[in-house]
């Protein structure tokens, strides 16, 4: 797996020309690698399965299991898939250059979100009420520990 820095640099260097479809595929693969980092860091083998035809969505599902805060990038993953489809199915569309640029930004957002969560321990704990939801409801509240 390439490092986050390498992936960020690769996203920055991608161009729509000459092959927008290839650029879209590269961005999709980079996004999969980003999620592979997350899944691997949690001690799991990144899945090779697909959901709705995309491994990225299966990796997101795997990464979000018992980690609700990871759902904060659910729509980002779906937007990456959507833009991949746009570029793959309409490579010669008049907005292709902008679409590639937009997909780069969305992929970059995923990378920043995931790398941020991994770089600083517990970064992201605040997101989406993640901690209270993950806590077992039987966990004792401070209140119940009062004398």
């Amino acid at each position, binding site marked *: 797996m390439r490092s986050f820095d390498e992936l960020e640099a690769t996203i920055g260097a991608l161009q729509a020309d000459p092959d927008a479809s290839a650029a879209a595929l590269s961005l999709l693969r980079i996004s999969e690698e980003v999620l592979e980092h997350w899944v691997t860091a949690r001690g799991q083998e990144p899945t090779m399965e697909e959901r709705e035809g995309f491994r990225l969505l299966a990796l997101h599902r795997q990464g979000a299991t018992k980690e*609700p805060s990871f*759902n*904060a*990038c*659910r*729509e*980002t993953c*779906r*937007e990456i898939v*959507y*833009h991949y489809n746009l570029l793959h199915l309409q490579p010669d569309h008049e907005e292709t250059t*902008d679409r590639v*640029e*937009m997909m780069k*930004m*969305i992929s*970059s*957002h995923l990378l*920043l*979100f995931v*790398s*941020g969560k991994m*770089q*600083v321990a517990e*970064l*992201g*704990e*605040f*997101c*989406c*009420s993640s*901690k*209270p*939801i993950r*806590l077992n*409801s*039987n966990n004792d*509240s*401070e*209140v*119940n520990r009062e004398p």
Partner: protein
Amino acid sequence: MTKKDKYQKVAYYPGCALEGTGHSYNRSTKAVGKKLGLDLVEVKNWNCCGAMEVKNIDPKIQTYLSSRVMSVAANEMDMDVVMAPCNGCYHNLKKAEYDLKNDEDSVAVVDKLSKKAGHKTYESGQVETIHALDWIKETIGEDGLRERVKNSLQGIKIANYYGCMYTRPRHIFPEKDQGPGSESTSKPHFMDDLLAAAGAENVEFPLKTACCGGAHTLSDSDTSTKLVLNILKAAKLAGAEVIATECPTCHSGLEMHQIRAAEVFGEKVEIKILYFTQLLGLALGLKPRKVGVHENVSDSMGFLKEKGLA
């Protein structure tokens, strides 16, 4: 009773942010409510919703704090709807409602603390918590807004940014994703609908629910700035001149990191950031000061004048 009738008079819970960095959101929400003939009654002696800090130390204390706000509205003010414009407050009250309906331990802790604090224990279902978007959408709606618009937002291209807490996690928002007319958790559209009714042209914005880095702003400012920069640039690329917000944390994050991005990374993105209530207020004929445009960090006056809204 229909929502249209039920939401005409609501208990207003501004929360801490709207008394500080989000004051223009407070001002514009009240001004728009008044202009539309809707009745806001501020929750008496309201307290912090538990925000993020308390929740991460002891989630049940957060449940209690949010429950107290709902208890005051229900038991001391005889209200059945609480309207919270802040995504954090809205989210926390909804979460408390969910916990009190589904978790006996939370009920026990809330009961114990409520008795200790000397007020009635909130019981799940006593009030309905709604967002400012629900409030305007259900009472006035798009048709009602169209009829009341004095200064159309026509010609203004807007990227609607909802942030993450308005729709996540899904299970605490059982009223969403209920088909036509309801809000969507994956592609929220209430703000789009209202601003379009006021004449604005909404752009296709793929990062409308993406993380703004708000919670990371102190622990990792550079990541927050880069996340915001991405949002600003994506909105600009989508053709937007304005990012409309409905959360004080997102709004101040976008404004602050817009400045920081220019200073730290040398990337200046020219795009205006305004609360949706400010835009609606202007469309309804209110003056910029009435909706607190002067209280925003970023200066939008030149832009608004150019668009005939100031």
